[in-house]
């Protein structure tokens, strides 16, 4: 199969972009959840 390296590179880059995007969504969601927990704790302390 000719140009196999190019095909391989394209698929790796494509899946890489999707994986990085997914990882960034998971990271941002987890950061926000911990912030929500922290804020809830702070608010309950203040009451």
């Amino acid at each position, binding site marked *: *199969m*000719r*140009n*196999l390296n*190019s*095909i391989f*590179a*394209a*698929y790796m*880059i*494509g*899946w890489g*972009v*999707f994986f990085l*995007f997914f990882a960034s969504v998971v990271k941002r969601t987890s950061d926000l959840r911990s912030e929500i927990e922290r804020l809830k704790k702070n608010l309950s302390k203040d009451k």
Partner: protein
Amino acid sequence: MIRRILFAAVAVGLVACAAYAAFYVAPEERTMGAIQRIFYLHASSAWAGETTFFFCFVANLLYIWRRKPQYDWLGVTCAEVGVAFITVVLLTGPIWAKPVWGIWWTWDARLTSTFVLWILYICYLLLRTLLDEPERRALLSALFGVFAFIDVMRKVFFFNVLAMHILALFLIAERYLLEKSKHDAELLRREAEAR
């Protein structure tokens, strides 16, 4: 949580099957050879990205009309996912173009409009980071999103496919109503016969 894992498993499984089909099932294209196999990822990502931008457009219109924050959340979600897909299109396209055209990039209408589309939605996402007040941010980005979608509509083929899909959805909805009426009529007929 289980539903999300199941959804992820289905998505990953389908992508793996699609890649297998692209590499081992699809026949080799006569003029371009094996490099054409990039198209299975490149073109499908373009479709997915443009369809996602369509959902973004609908969400933006709904926000302008109804002013519910959920439509704003859907709009930004679709814009971000669409940008990821169009990024894949812009990265895999040149890898295909180099062996086939002999150049990585050319400023022809299709490539330029895809690049402009990507820039427009990057601007949509950037615009949101510049505005602090949630309602103002949602409204301005919704208006910008409606404007950005015009670039997708300029792609005549996509516009036609989109129109046909909407027509198909409309016909499905109408046909479904017919089936529901048929069912209701059958129940009433049986009830009348029983009396």
